[in-house]
């Protein structure tokens, strides 16, 4: 699939739709990276605490920032045990904004996983401080990419198209898998939940597991 995409993209890039280089340069000038410090790239520190101790629970929340040596992308999960996935209180949003101001040049990104916030420009010497402060503000769930990192559509609670409620199912699953050791033992696993056959919770049915609501004569079932 990747090779096909590359071939297809190249044929468009080199074909009748080829862009004038001055137009490309003009557009590129509108996307600027922050004024990064010249830091030494030191990826192992992204997975260690302030005293150099290993922090395996946190490691999956960090990725190297590919545009800048010495910086990391930090993911904060808003998928609490027993709560609606992705909900953030005003206080949590204020706290995330403060973290962005302090550590990430004031930038926050909402990821394609929806409901997860990313700080894209955190110096690698800073992630442990980010996480400590995020934990203090209940943005502390170290379940990124684990079974409780669930995407749920709004479901019958908020959507008139739905046949079934999605959020209570997500809350119950997150309670069943609150043991992070068990979740880590299962490894990377994504559950997407949709309240009807339109499957908004998982476009193209791409999740590892994907319950969808259906209405049948016996009542509301899921499939």
């Amino acid at each position, binding site marked *: 699939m990747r090779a096909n995409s590359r071939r297809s993209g190249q044929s468009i890039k080199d074909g009748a739709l080829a862009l004038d280089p001055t137009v490309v340069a003009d557009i590129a000038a509108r996307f600027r990276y922050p004024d990064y410090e010249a830091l030494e790239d030191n990826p192992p520190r992204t997975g260690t605490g302030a005293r150099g101790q290993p922090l395996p629970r946190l490691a999956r929340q960090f990725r190297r920032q590919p545009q800048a040596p010495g910086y990391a992308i930090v993911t904060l999960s808003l998928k609490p045990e027993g709560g609606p996935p992705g909900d953030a209180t005003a206080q949590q949003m204020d706290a995330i904004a403060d973290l962005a101001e302090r550590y990430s040049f004031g930038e926050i990104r909402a990821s394609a996983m929806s409901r997860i916030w990313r700080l894209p420009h955190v110096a690698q010497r800073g992630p442990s401080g980010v996480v400590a402060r995020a934990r203090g503000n209940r943005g502390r769930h170290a379940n990124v990419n684990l079974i409780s990192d669930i995407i749920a559509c709004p479901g019958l609670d908020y959507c008139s198209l739905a046949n079934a409620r999605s959020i209570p199912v997500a809350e*119950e*699953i997150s309670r069943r898998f609150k043991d992070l050791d068990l979740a880590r033992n299962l490894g990377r696993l994504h559950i997407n939940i949709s309240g009807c056959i339109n499957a908004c919770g998982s476009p193209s*049915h791409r*999740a*590892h*597991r994907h319950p*969808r609501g259906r209405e049948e004569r016996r*009542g*509301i079932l899921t499939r």
Partner: protein
Amino acid sequence: MTIGGRADENAELGKILGPAVPYGEIADVVEDFAAAYLELR
């Protein structure tokens, strides 16, 4: 319930696994999935 979908560079559609599951049993079934996975992998 579908299982086995992927959204990364090896994108794949999930497969429907068995009959429909009653709403109140979804979490139980997910737990069963997890237990079976740990046992069989």
